[in-house]
């Protein structure tokens, strides 16, 4: 079982460079899927996004999710990067990447990782506006998305 590359960090990451490295190191895999999550600017209303997390539990939770993905699908590689701290509109928040022999496994594993990261990894988003700040509420769809796996 290939190791998962998991990074939880405050600083930015270079999506294109990470994606290219991931693909390069996935020699033999026929299919690579990446997901990139960006801070939406909400039509200019958003000043910044603040992401809080639970150090220690975060890494354990992501590793457990990645392990589960690797038991469900035959994967060549997994990478997960998730930032915390203050992010500007348009900035990358997080990404996942999966590599597999066939596209079905790469897509399914990437969606599985996203669904579980959304609702089972201890991150909380706060949106900062000119007139205040709001914690982002969990979407019912995100919890419901777990039922399909």
């Amino acid at each position, binding site marked *: 079982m290939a190791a998962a590359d998991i990074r939880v960090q405050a600083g930015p990451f270079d999506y294109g460079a990470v994606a290219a490295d991931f693909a390069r190191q996935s020699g033999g895999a026929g299919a690579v899927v990446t997901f990139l*999550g960006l801070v939406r600017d909400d039509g200019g209303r958003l000043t910044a996004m603040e*992401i*809080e*997390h*639970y150090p*220690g*539990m975060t890494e*354990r*939770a992501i590793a457990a999710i990645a392990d589960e993905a690797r038991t469900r699908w035959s994967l060549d590689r997994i990478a997960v990067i*998730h930032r915390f701290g203050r992010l500007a509109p348009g900035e990358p*928040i*997080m990404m996942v990447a999966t590599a597999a022999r066939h596209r079905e496994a790469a897509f399914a594993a990437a969606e599985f990782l*996203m669904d579980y*990261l*959304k*609702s*089972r*990894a*201890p*991150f*909380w*988003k*706060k949106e900062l506006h000119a007139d205040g700040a709001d*914690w*982002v*509420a*969990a979407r019912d769809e*995100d*919890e419901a998305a777990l039922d399909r796996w």
Partner: protein
Amino acid sequence: MIRVLYFAWVRERIGRPSETVETAAATVAGLIAELSAREDRYAAAFADLRALRVATDQQLSSFDAPLAGVREVAFFPPMTGG
């Protein structure tokens, strides 16, 4: 002696990120009852348990989970990562 952590609006409502609590509570629910009896800001934070999640020793857990042997309890709203 249990270390208790609060995140997101739970942290803001209680006014601190963590504390060490001396408790004889047998379960997470018992700990919540003790904390809620302490001060209004705790009672406010724990008023609606459906809006809360709990982790014991960094694993998602439940309110009826036993505290025996647990060193760290964390309270937070549903997660919104990704």
